[in-house]
């Protein structure tokens, strides 16, 4: 139990996928203008990361490794994740339209989200079990969501402040992301 708790804390705060590993920066900047949107995107990432990690774990364990094709990991994962997102999108659109609507444009955005890919790869590198991988994926997704929501909150404030014209929007957003990243470094000593 304690192991999982630490895994959660580590994934959310210490090794935050975006603020410590610098993965998923484009959706991080792109969808952090508004808290509502940030929550939607965060939820979509949690959902997809968990599914992708589970499936890629199965592909790795039951396909690539028995065949000794570990070096195909990246290619295979890209393929699997992209197809998975497409499938999930179609599935939700038909079967759970309200959920599809609430995830809206975020699902297709995730197709090319390196954070999801990164989570799947980290699980392999650390040789987690399937359950652990899923737990790690969920925690990393939550970490992404927290970072996104915090940045969105900051950017909403910035929106109504006098920011030099050249710095408005993405530039000041990146500066804020950098500062947040520094702040998250403080968690380093926690575990």
């Amino acid at each position, binding site marked *: 139990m304690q192991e999982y708790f630490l895994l959660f804390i580590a994934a959310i705060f210490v090794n935050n996928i975006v603020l410590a590993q610098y993965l998923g920066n484009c959706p991080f900047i792109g969808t952090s203008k508004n808290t509502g949107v940030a929550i939607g995107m965060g939820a979509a990432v949690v959902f997809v990361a968990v599914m992708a990690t589970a499936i890629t774990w199965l592909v790795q364990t039951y*396909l690539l490794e028995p065949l000794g094709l570990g070096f*195909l990991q990246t290619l295979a994962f890209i*393929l699997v994740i992209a197809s998975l997102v497409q499938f999930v999108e*179609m*599935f939700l659109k038909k*079967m759970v339209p309200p959920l599809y609507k609430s995830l809206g444009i975020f699902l297709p955005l995730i197709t090319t989200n390196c954070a999801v890919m990164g989570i799947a790869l980290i699980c392999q590198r650390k040789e987690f079990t399937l359950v652990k991988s899923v737990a790690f994926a969920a925690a990393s997704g939550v970490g992404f969501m927290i970072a996104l929501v915090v940045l969105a909150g900051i950017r909403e404030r910035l929106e109504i402040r006098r920011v030099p014209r050249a710095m408005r929007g993405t530039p000041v957003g990146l500066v804020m992301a950098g500062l947040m990243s520094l702040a998250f470094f403080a968690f380093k000593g926690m575990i």
Partner: protein
Amino acid sequence: MITTSALTLFGLGFGSAAILSVASKLLYVKEDPRIAQVEDLLPGANCGGCGYPGCSGAAAAIVSGKANAGVCVVAETEAMVAIAALMGQTIEEREPEIAFRDCTGGTRAEERFAYAGIMDCQAAAMLHGGSKSCPEGCLGLGTCVAVCPFDAIHMGPEGLPVVDPDECRACGKCAEACPRGVISIVGMTSRLLHLNEVTDCLAPCRQKCPGQIDIPRYIQQIKAGDYDGAVNTIKERNPLLMVCGRVCPRPCETVCRRNNVDSPVGINMLKRFVADRELHGGTHLPVPCAKDTGRKVAVIGGGPAGLSCAYFLRRLGHSPTIFEAMPALGGQLRYGIPEYRLPKADLDWEIQGILDLGVDVHLNKRFGKDYDIESLKQDGFEAVFLGIGAWQASGMYAEGEDLEGVWGGIEFLTAHALGQSIDIGKKVIVVGGGNTAIDCARTCVRLGAEVIMLYRRTRAEMPANPEEIVGAEEEGVQFKFLAAPTRVVGDENGRATHLEYKMMELGEPDASGRRRPEPVEGSETLMEADLIIPAIGQKPDLTCLYDDDAESCPVETTRWQTIVADPDTFQTIVPGVFTAGDVFTGPDLVISAVGGGRKAARSIHYHLQQDGDIPIPDTLQRDLIPYTMFKEVTGVRQSERAQMPHLCHGDERNCTFSEVEGALSETEALAEADRCLHCGLTCYDRDMEQPEEKEQQIL
């Protein structure tokens, strides 16, 4: 190895593709192709001004019918036309709307705190309500400026946001961001429909004006030399500005903050100044009207209330028709106010301006005789406005008052206005102390009679305007105060020859707070008279509402012979039948009738557009807002109030009906406009910096 790798990858790819193709077959959801087409036509700014998340959201909303083709605040007309064509909609011209700031004070408001925290209006407003003592005033931190995606708003020199009308797209972001509600998005219709609310920035004068005219704004426009702008501001509330500029008793001036310094701003003189400029310019300034709705409304009575109601209905896009019993429009403006105060030619000109907007008129049509509510409904009128005024003179309750030679005040003025020759003889007694009594007296002076006015209280208690009393005095009218008529004495032909009156003395205060006049026993005196005019009061004549046997009346009435209606919506107990003006309030001011006409037009608009649901805001301003009525006004230099010039003097004044009062010259008007403090709720423009008052308490 290579073969295995290739096969594995191929297998994975093929597997995924197979699953996806089966899934796409099974899970296919038909999507309207128009969404993509509409999205292509939208400018792609993703500004959110439309209220949807980005342009794709807006496109989906348009296709699903939740939004119209014109939803995008950025798109040019061509794009909207193309979208409308795609959607099979017709594009209608959208009424121009713009961000509007309703705060006059800003940093000039008395400052309670100099807020030194986060420089954002919302934060400032959350902490102690901000930096200014005014509960509604602008905080001047410029949050609205920061949120405008179109750079259409900036902070002006006075620390107040200024909107650039050319750039503003009415997206409403500034209004949303402002915690004080100082900025709103308004178009003509919403301005016409707006009623004064306590949350508006209401200068005292604006609170008191029964027509709710934005007085500080039009005075400011005069000061800036924008006379046409001032006319338009007034016309947003009052189509009879030329009339009111002449006859309004100016309730607004009684509460003007300048009363605490010297004398009130000549608000009405300024109104008359711009109205006369329009009049002498010879053409009516164009008045915008909303798109035709094709809905017909019958306006019964062409007096100030009816004219105002028809004018506002027309501006809101409806088709009003005025039915008037007299041979010309104007009601008591024409038949109750003498020519020397309100020249008929000018009145005609002003009324023509209203009719030119597209108002139909039927003259000499008497309600209850030529038509009634039922027949109007059959003729396709969807709502009825009853503005029949108060045309019945109240009696003196004195014996003999039905003798020949006794004329009710309003009847006398009407007969005179209709050009009937009245034998007024040499001596006239007018009974009463109101404006109608004075009008009768001054009219008789001009007809060559010697006039005595009898009033049962003292001069100080006369309800007439002081300058009217002075005018009458100057023209030779004599007054007999504390005298009340008791009996009319006639000769053998049944013609009045004398009026017997009793002297009065003031006793205990009555319900109105004034001391009640009580007769002095044995003081009866006979006074000779060729004509006696009791001008004691008027009431509505409601006989036209009753059916032939004079028994049933469709609307409810009061014992003062007025019609009962909801005080906020002006709707009578008959749905779709509205009323305002003297027939609703009893005899009142022209501007009250004009204001009532507008409010009724507003209700009729909602009645027609929203199936009878007439919204009344909870924050309606009904009385003067106490904390805005100052006992003293500091830091203001004294200055002389302008004098209304007189146009004619001596014999010309006493023997003709030429207009007596004139208009201010431009220089005088500018000087007078400059006297206005441009007040807000608690702020006003000070002449001088008050260094000691600059000290502020820092949070």
